[in-house]
């Protein structure tokens, strides 16, 4: 968590206005050395703008950025030890792969031999040695992506910014490249900030994730924490799927709360959150995979009757959409662990949906 990483990049109250429009709103972040940090958010939420302020292409309208203790205000892009991998890769079309990778080294004090060695090492790192003398239009999309990565890494930046590094690749290549990216990061030890709008990509790659919405950071934390303990309804619904219902606190019983959920028509129990008071109205959210589906009333708390409206069978698991007595829907994701035995629920079957009190998430606001 934020406390145990050595602060390396500090973003303090950074905002960016384009005329009357605020693209980034008061962002505060601390990022540790050697971390892979993901900025996750929908299209137009200000991810690229934040990245461009880190790279120096835009000046923050207010707030400051510290890198390794040094204030970056007014430092032009060419003097920042920060490199960027562009969303479009932005390879130089008139230079070979080799020249592209070596371009940044012109500005380093090093001998020609050192320079060639570095380029060779980089080509090796991204496995492009056979393509060294080709031009960008002579290589494939995945190879271009690797050239862009090698070019940004060649000068050994302190911080590497990757803007949607995998968006232009097809699905299979994307999965493969994710792991390659992680292994390269491990070997080089460079701090990565990865922008993405793909939540799975963010969770696979990142040590920590910041979820952004309309220019503001909603929550920061490791993938597990952000997924299991979303801080807001936006974060809860942005990461994975989730069903949300209005609920009212009836009673507080030790660590648990008894809630009246109009959609369920029966009171349910959920693990209480700090500061809960009786009568408070909030949101109860449950993820589909935390729910169990039964053909007979199960023992234990939180069993809600319903009828199967829709089902999708994927083989190893199934997704059910269950109509509750109130008419609202709930999604259940069940693993088909057993073969045969009790037959799986079918269309229009009467079923009971159950969950542990700890599985329910209570959200304010």
């Amino acid at each position, binding site marked *: 968590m934020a406390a145990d990483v050595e602060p390396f990049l500090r973003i303090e109250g950074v905002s960016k206005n384009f005329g009357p429009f605020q693209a980034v709103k008061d962002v505060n972040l601390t990022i540790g050395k050697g971390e892979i940090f993901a900025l996750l958010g929908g299209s137009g939420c200000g991810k690229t703008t934040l990245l461009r302020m880190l790279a120096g292409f835009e000046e923050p309208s207010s707030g400051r950025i510290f890198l390794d203790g040094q204030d970056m205000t007014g430092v032009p*892009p060419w003097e920042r030890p920060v490199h960027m991998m562009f969303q479009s890769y932005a390879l130089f079309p008139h230079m070979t792969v080799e020249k592209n990778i070596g371009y940044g080294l012109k500005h380093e004090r090093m001998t020609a031999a050192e320079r060639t060695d570095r380029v060779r090492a980089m080509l090796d790192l991204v496995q492009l040695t056979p393509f060294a003398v080709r031009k960008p239009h002579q290589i494939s999309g995945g190879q271009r992506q690797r050239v862009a990565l090698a070019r940004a890494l060649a000068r050994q930046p302190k911080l590497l910014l990757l803007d949607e590094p995998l968006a232009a690749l097809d699905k299979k290549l994307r999965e493969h490249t994710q792991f390659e990216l992680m292994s390269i990061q491990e070997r080089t030890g460079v701090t990565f900030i990865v922008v993405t709008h793909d939540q799975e990509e963010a969770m696979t790659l990142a040590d920590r994730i910041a979820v952004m919405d309309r220019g503001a950071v909603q929550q920061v934390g490791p993938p597990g924490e952000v997924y299991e303990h979303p801080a807001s309804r936006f974060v809860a619904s942005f990461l994975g799927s989730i069903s949300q219902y209005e609920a009212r606190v009836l009673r507080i019983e030790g660590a648990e709360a008894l809630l009246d959920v109009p959609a369920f028509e029966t009171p349910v129990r959920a693990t209480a959150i700090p500061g809960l008071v009786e009568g408070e109205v909030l949101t109860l959210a449950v993820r589909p995979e935390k729910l169990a589906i039964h053909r007979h009333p199960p023992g234990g708390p939180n069993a809600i009757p319903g009828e199967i409206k829709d089902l999708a069978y994927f083989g190893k698991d199934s997704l059910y959409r269950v109509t509750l007595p109130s008419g609202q829907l709930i999604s259940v994701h069940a693993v088909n662990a057993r073969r045969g035995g009790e037959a799986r629920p079918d269309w229009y079957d009467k079923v009971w949906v159950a969950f542990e009190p700890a599985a329910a998430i209570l959200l304010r606001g």
Partner: protein
Amino acid sequence: MRRSPVFLITVLCFGFAFFYIPILSMMVYSFNGSRLATVWGGFSTKWYVSLLSNKQVIAAALLSFKIAVVSATFATILGTMAGFALSRFRKFRGRTLFSGLVTAPLIMPEVITGISMLMFFILTANWIGWPGARGFSTITLAHITFSMVFVTTIVQARLGQADRAIEEAAMDLGSRPWQVLWDVTLPTAFTAILSGWLLAFTISLDDVVITSFTTGPGSTTLPLLIWSKVKLGVTPDINALATITVVVVGIGVALAGWVMHRAEKRRLADERMAFSSND
């Protein structure tokens, strides 16, 4: 299916006949043995012989070529600078006036440009003693001035379409803005700059009006020579000159087309190669 548009094809044929019959007629009559330029008097190549042995013509062609090369080169340098400034520097003092100055020569009638240049040169000769005699230098200065704005138009259009991320990437990798200009912006706009040079070259090579105002005794460019001959009426050796021009230009254009076609084919082959090496 589109029906074949008979009317349009007919007009197209008529149009191309209109374009090329005068030129072909000129080429045929360049082999005319008769002294009367428009009456056929048997096949002969004597006009070519007389043309190519005419020292005046050769000297004028050389002078035109020299002026065109020098003025196109300077026009390209200055025009590219102006195009870069207008497309990359959002704000600077006097930007409005500058962009006006870059478009005005495009629409200024040549007579007016010519007269204003001549008045300018006469007045500066009176005030500061320069230019002592009009000729190569004054013609070249005038040609640079009115052809640089064509280069600017071409370069500015290309830079406006260019991918800015490539320039930002160079900056990100440690290059200062002027190094980015040199390393990335200029090389990627190379074809636009080259076509700017070619345009400036042809404009200079072809100009009569402005040259006629800015020239001085002894400096006769090829168009001026033709102009002075043609003003007196049709003369057969001009037919020969025209034929040579058309053939040279035709070969040049066909060659350029062939080179472009080859480059296109190579690009397609490259793309196929990239696709097959996809791993």
